[in-house]
């Protein structure tokens, strides 16, 4: 079932067009990987999905992005509510300069998701457990989040993202600053999270896209060249440009 449907999406940074007529369906409770060379528009497209481009003054987004059949590009959309439903994890772990506990509790608190301290404690514990971090930090929840290792900080950011129970999680190169062990932990986490969430991940690692996703889209020069099952894209893509990119033949 389609969770997200992008229709004729065009994005401009001032005069410069960054995305051209993107049409793409994203399946519910699956992982969709977006791949392509730097500057191809994959991160721009990812940021369209929770209107993060709104914060860039010169950025203009045209077309429809429907999530649960609702066009999020409508003026009436409450972007705070939208980003509660569509969480995001960035390339560099960016915990708040607060305690581990507060890093997780902040979102549920401002969204009024907990009625009592006990409820909030429970959300913090559940989120850290789902992010496979609970056992490592349960005894030091009052220490600063910035004191964790890079991999732990990224899992903390994932725990923070899932604490508000988003339907979709957007990940922009979440493992590019991590070592292989921390990367494997995040990938295992992605596998687990897809049982309850729809995940869209931008990655420069072809093998990561192949390992974690069920659907892959290849972007080049602002165009979606090909989208299909990950299996097909990495074994026998339809487009020559896709094949040239994934096999390392790109000029």
């Amino acid at each position: 079932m389609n969770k997200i449907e992008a229709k004729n999406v065009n994005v401009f940074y001032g005069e410069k067009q960054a995305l051209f007529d993107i049409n793409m369906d994203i399946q519910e409770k699956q992982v969709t990987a977006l791949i392509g060379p730097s500057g191809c528009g994959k991160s721009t497209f990812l940021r369209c999905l929770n209107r993060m481009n709104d914060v860039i003054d010169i950025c203009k987004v045209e077309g429809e992005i429907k999530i649960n059949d609702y066009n999020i590009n409508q003026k009436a959309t409450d972007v705070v509510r939208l980003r509660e439903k569509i969480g995001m994890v960035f390339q560099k772990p960016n915990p708040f300069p607060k305690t581990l506990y507060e890093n997780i509790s902040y979102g549920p608190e401002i969204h009024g998701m907990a009625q009592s301290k006990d409820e909030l404690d429970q959300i913090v514990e559940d989120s850290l457990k789902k992010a496979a971090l609970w056992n490592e930090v349960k005894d030091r929840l009052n220490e600063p989040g910035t004191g964790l290792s890079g991999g732990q900080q990224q899992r903390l950011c994932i725990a923070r993202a899932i604490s508000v129970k988003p339907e979709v999680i957007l990940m922009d190169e979440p493992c590019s600053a991590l070592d292989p062990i921390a990367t494997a932990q995040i990938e295992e986490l992605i596998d687990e999270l897809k049982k309850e969430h729809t995940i869209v991940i931008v990655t420069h690692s072809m093998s990561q896209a192949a390992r974690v996703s069920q659907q892959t889209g290849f972007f080049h020069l602002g165009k979606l060249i090909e989208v299909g099952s990950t299996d097909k894209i990495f074994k026998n893509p339809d487009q020559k440009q896709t094949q040239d990119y994934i096999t390392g033949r790109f000029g």
Partner: protein
Amino acid sequence: MTEAPHTVKSYEEELKNLNSNVIKMGGFCEEALGKAIQAITTRNSDNAESVIQEDEKIDKFETLIEQQVVNLIALRQPMAIDLRETVTALKISSDLERIGDLAKNISKRTLLLNENLPKNLVDSLIRVSTNVQKQLKAVLDSYLERSAAVAINVWESDEQIDDLTNLCMNEVISYLKENEKNLEDGTHLLFVTKNIERIGDHTTNVAEQVYFLVTGEYLEGDRPKGTEPIVTGEK
């Protein structure tokens, strides 16, 4: 290869080298089969001896290709067409190795056969083997040229080989029935005929691999089969 070259030249070289080893190995198999058939039909023991000795060369190619494939998978993680190149090289080399073994077995039996075989049997063997040799050449060409059309053609022609094998088997069985003295030669000839047919089967396997390599799709359905095989000993 019609693909654009890889950005990393050493990777490009490794894939080219793998491809060229499969082609070389195929060439040695073609030569072995040619010599083995010539040896049995013209009773040339030198050719038979040469096939037996040269088989080691074919075996070494299989080991070399396997090592190259394992290295490519471990160190380069090939994708798409490169992945298909790598995987099919491994599978094709395994079929070629079997072809080499079967040619060697034909040659060993050749050395044990009597000098004078009945002409009708020799003619019959020539008919089957000419077909199999043609198929092997065609399938190796299809690999070299990356031609799915030629590969399908080979795949579909296996039926003819099955039919010719059965005719040949029938003649060998009649020869066996003629005289008890024919028992030893006849038995060898049954195995030789079966070996030639098996070479045809391996050739068809290679055709399936070439088709997958070029198209990324598997050849669907059962391979076309000829008439039912003869069950020896049946009244």
